[in-house]
């Protein structure tokens, strides 16, 4: 079991670009508990919308499956067909941390106690960081819903926040899995529709182009950023080994000068790796995580374009039906009604989508601005620290 103290990271942990709804509905994850295979999030809501909600302040405990369930319900709802639905947060995954810890345990006999302790505490810090990240992602998901003018009114969302018992959301059974596959199956059909549909509207034409090409590049950038950061972190961690080896050498060294030198070097390695480690994890947080999130969000935007494309296709087939009906002279009224309904659906979605996509872009420009600026600032800060440490160490090694 792992109880996590989130108080230190609350400040600026999650981004919320205010969409002008003020602070009448504030949602945060105040606590999180990791037990065995699942994480339990405590969601605390503070609101002034009292008639809608029973109390001004309340908390519930939710698991990740319940978040996924909420995301699915919102995505299915045709009312929100014209909205960019916030992407479901990624499943909490500590498997890599667990693997590393296991591997460390196996190698325990071949390293000094000091080295082992340092690597262990480094891994524990990593685990904690992963944990905080998953909390942040889940929180951002809820906040976006709370800030969206339409989604915040959703009843299922209300239930999610308020209902103080288990939502009895079992993990996907077979039928739902099949439906899930169908959905992805639809995606490829959607892709085909998207690419072949004649688009008269320039705005959407541009959006389509942008999303499809952009998405591909984003994903490569993301996987490279991840690998880059992983190696960077590995570099930082390897300094632990170097430090331990240098320390070990001092123990039998006859020459006092050399022993002292190596000891200073070992100390330097230990301090330096902390700085490099922090640089790596900030790069991870501000760059890779931002890209991760961007990818998920673009996915949601893509879904929106798919829905619109489907609506357009429906409208076009309704048109054809109407023509056929008129040609045959049969059931014309129904066909007209169908066509009008299809047109309305399409139109509503399209108009809503237009606004959503514009605000999507605005939100992302702001988000990238914030994160890239913070990335640069943190890299500068750490670099300065490294330069300083190197300068000091060199002086010490030279002068004694």
């Amino acid at each position, binding site marked *: 079991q792992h109880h996590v103290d989130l108080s230190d990271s609350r400040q600026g942990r999650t981004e919320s670009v205010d969409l002008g709804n003020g602070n009448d509905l504030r949602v945060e994850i105040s606590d999180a508990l990791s037990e065995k295979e699942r994480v339990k999030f405590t969601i605390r809501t503070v609101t002034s919308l009292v008639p809608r909600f029973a109390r001004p302040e309340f908390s519930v405990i939710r698991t990740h499956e319940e978040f996924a369930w909420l995301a699915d319900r919102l995505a299915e709802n045709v009312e929100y067909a014209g909205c960019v639905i916030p992407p479901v947060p990624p499943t909490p995954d500590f498997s890599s941390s667990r693997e590393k810890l296991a591997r460390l345990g196996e190698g325990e006999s071949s390293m000094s106690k000091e080295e082992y302790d340092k690597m262990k505490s480094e891994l524990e810090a990593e685990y904690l960081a992963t944990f905080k990240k998953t909390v942040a992602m889940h929180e951002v998901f809820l906040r976006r819903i709370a800030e969206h003018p339409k989604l915040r009114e959703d009843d299922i969302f209300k239930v999610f926040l308020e209902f103080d018992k288990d939502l009895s959301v079992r993990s996907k059974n077979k039928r739902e899995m099949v439906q899930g596959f169908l959905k992805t199956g639809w995606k490829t059909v959607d892709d085909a529709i998207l690419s072949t549909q004649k688009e008269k509207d320039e705005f959407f034409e541009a959006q389509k182009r942008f999303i499809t090409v952009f998405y591909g590049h984003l994903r490569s950038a993301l996987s490279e950023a991840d690998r880059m950061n992983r190696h960077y972190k590995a570099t930082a961690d390897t300094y632990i*080994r170097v430090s331990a080896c240098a320390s070990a*050498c001092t123990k039998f060294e006859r*020459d006092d*000068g050399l022993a002292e030198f190596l000891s200073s070097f070992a100390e330097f390695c230990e301090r330096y790796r902390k700085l490099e480690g922090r640089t790596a994890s900030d790069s991870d947080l501000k760059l890779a995580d931002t890209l991760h999130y961007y990818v998920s969000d673009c996915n949601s935007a893509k879904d929106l374009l798919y829905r619109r494309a489907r609506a357009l296709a429906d409208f076009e087939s309704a048109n054809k039906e109407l023509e056929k009906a008129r040609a045959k002279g049969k059931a014309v009224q129904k066909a007209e009604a169908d066509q009008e309904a299809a047109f309305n659906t399409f139109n509503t979605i399209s108009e809503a989508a237009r606004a959503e996509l514009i605000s999507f872009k605005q939100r992302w*420009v702001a988000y990238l601005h914030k994160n890239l600026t913070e990335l640069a600032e943190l890299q500068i800060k750490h*670099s300065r620290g490294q330069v300083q440490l190197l300068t000091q160490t*060199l002086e010490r090694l030279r002068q004694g």
Partner: protein
Amino acid sequence: MEKSSDNSEDDIFAETNETVDVEDVDLNSSGAGVSTPAATAAPAPAAEKLEPSAPPAAASAPPAAATAPADPPASNSSSGGPSKLELPASLAFEYLLTVRVTKPEKIGDGMGAYVAYKVSFSTTIPAFSRPEGSVRRRFSDFLGLYEKLHEKYLRDGFVIPPKPEKSVVGATKVKMSKDSVEEDHFVERRRAQLERFLVRCSDHPVLRMDPDFREFLEHDGDLPKSSGTRALSGAGVMRVFSSIGSSVQRMTYKMDETDQWFEDKNQEVHQLEEHLHRLHSSIEALVNHRREYGFMAEQFAGSANMISSVEENTNLSFAFTKLAETEERVGRLQIEQADSDYYGLAELLHDHLAMLESVRASLYERVRVYKTWKDAEIALTKKREEKVRNELGGKADKAAACEAAARELEGQVERGQEAFDKISATVRSELERYDLRRGYELKTAIVASLEHQLRQQQCVLEAWEAYLPEAKRILAA
């Protein structure tokens, strides 16, 4: 392997040596750290055609020495003079000898092809026929030199610098490949090893005066082909057999060690090997991770550029372009750092591990001499007993013969003891020298690595400082 454009070296060999070789630093400091006028004056005159090497690391050593002109000779003590990094006085020489190995060049094509290296020297040693010069030598020439030195000097207990490694796979690749030889990692690694080998010889008081060594450096034109060095030659096969034999012998003969110094030393060598080995693999791991990191950063830069090309928002697009530039620069700097640490630290440690093998070989020679001496003593005792038995048995002639043989054996025992004392003194002085050298080289290499890292890190800092305003501008009108 790209050339670093960061270090502005006016060294004429700069274009093939991208990283600071530790030996370069040695050579410079050996002039600066000692107060004898000949040595301190040396770098200038010798520097006419052959500038003694890379500025960056050297630039830090002279100033340190310059602030302490009246430095006490024992600059290695922990009470320490102003700089702990000077070459210990006992390692410096009155006459200078500088050697370099550069400009690898592929000669010929296909399986008959080989790489020729330029070997240059600069010296004030009177025995040399001229103060400087250069020749072209190939790998088998180096091996030939090693074999000669090994044969001549090992039996007296000298620590012979380790033989440059053969690597059939690497060598064949170079023969068959069409790539430029200068850019090849294998070739660079070999060049550095060959240079280190020659430098170690030139830093050894006895080896540097050896006529074969001198000929290797001075003789214009090709050396007689040392076919004995080819792996599958008869001599090569014999060598394999003899080396197996000697290691078996090492295990079976147990010397009665009366000298505590040697008792301790044997222990130490063992420990040192273990720890250096660990240090070496940890540094290799560090270098590999850093290289991967740099490489991935460059990849990422590519993708970021693609993103920028599709992005419609001009400020954002520009920010991504600049991010790509920054990460590419950072990636490049990391790769350079990794390369520098590989050649400067990892390969150095690898070399010291090989040196420890040579150290062991010397220690073993001493054991062999001891055995010879003790065997003679045993034979003498037996002869004397035989003589007494003959006398008691009334065999006067045989007794006389034993007396004669015993007298000869006495001579052998005496010579054996002398040889043992002599080799013990040699081995001891060699090992003490080696300890000092190892300490000096390790310290210098670490300092050079940190200095390099400092420079790189300052560039990284500049890169991010340049990026910050671009990121801020994303929201500008």
